[in-house]
């Protein structure tokens, strides 16, 4: 696979990838470790909650998204990690049996002034279910190595 450097990444570039089936077992397993609220781990209580059944922890959905990004995108970039992200929103519950996929778009890129051998890629990550409903989105920040120190 060709490695993408800062110069290779185009503003407006869109990638769609991933096909992650979410199982009830995984939802309960993740939430038992990291988010043990009843609507994530207890089928009886979840049925009575505003969600009407077990739903995935938002952190689980985000982590499943990261896995799809690593498999399909991160590994092909000369990435140097990420300082974080902005405006993550959970729009709809993720339920057992849902199939998730990701749409990634490059919104902007800026070469570092202090370290011109790298730059930051600003992206939008959107996650959809099998009915094309957006379940989550966030604005990503990724640092990427450059090939040269100028454009």
């Amino acid at each position: 696979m060709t490695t993408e450097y800062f110069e290779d990444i185009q503003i407006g570039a869109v990638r769609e990838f991933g096909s992650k089936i979410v199982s009830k077992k995984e939802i309960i397993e993740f939430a038992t470790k990291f988010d043990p609220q009843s609507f994530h781990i207890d089928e009886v209580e979840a049925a009575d909650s505003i969600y009407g059944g077990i739903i995935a922890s938002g952190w689980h959905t985000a982590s499943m998204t990261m896995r799809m990004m690593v498999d399909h995108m991160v590994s092909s970039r000369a990435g140097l990690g990420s300082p974080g992200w902005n405006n993550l929103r959970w729009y709809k519950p993720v339920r057992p049996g849902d199939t998730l996929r990701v749409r990634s778009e490059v919104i902007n890129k800026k070469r570092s002034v202090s370290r011109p051998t790298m730059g930051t890629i600003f992206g939008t990550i959107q996650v959809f279910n099998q009915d094309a409903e957006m379940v989550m989105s966030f604005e990503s920040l990724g640092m990427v190595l450059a090939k040269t120190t100028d454009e």
Partner: protein
Amino acid sequence: MEKQHWEDFPVGRVDDFGNRLVTEEEIIEFATEFDPQPFHIDKEAAAEHFFGGIIASGWHTGSMLMRMLVDEMLINSTSMGSPGVDELRWKAPVRPGEILSVRSEVISATVHKYKSDRGFTKFSYVVSNEKGKVKLTMTSTILFLKKAVGGSQ
């Protein structure tokens, strides 16, 4: 113990909590499933990387923060979930053997525009290790039910 409602989280409320030991086994287990980059899962590759050893996936650190929030604040509250997170920053790598804790501060509290029985509370969180080194900061919102007016709800 009575559940904590929206009114119990006024602006300026500060809570310190959490005592989470991060193990190498857990770092590798999480990252193998969700973030299989070499510096999270491969000790030898991580040692040669600029991080100089295995570090936790940032999503793992976020998830550990979530667990501390659930145990301390949410499990005994009227939380109805969260619409999202405004900002998250990974300030420094989290390594095996570190012990994480949280400082939480309420930065805004507003009643729901259309449903007056509930309100949004915005929190600022700082996750630090046992030496006080800041590892992660986050600003996010939780929706809580309010106390019933006249106890008739």
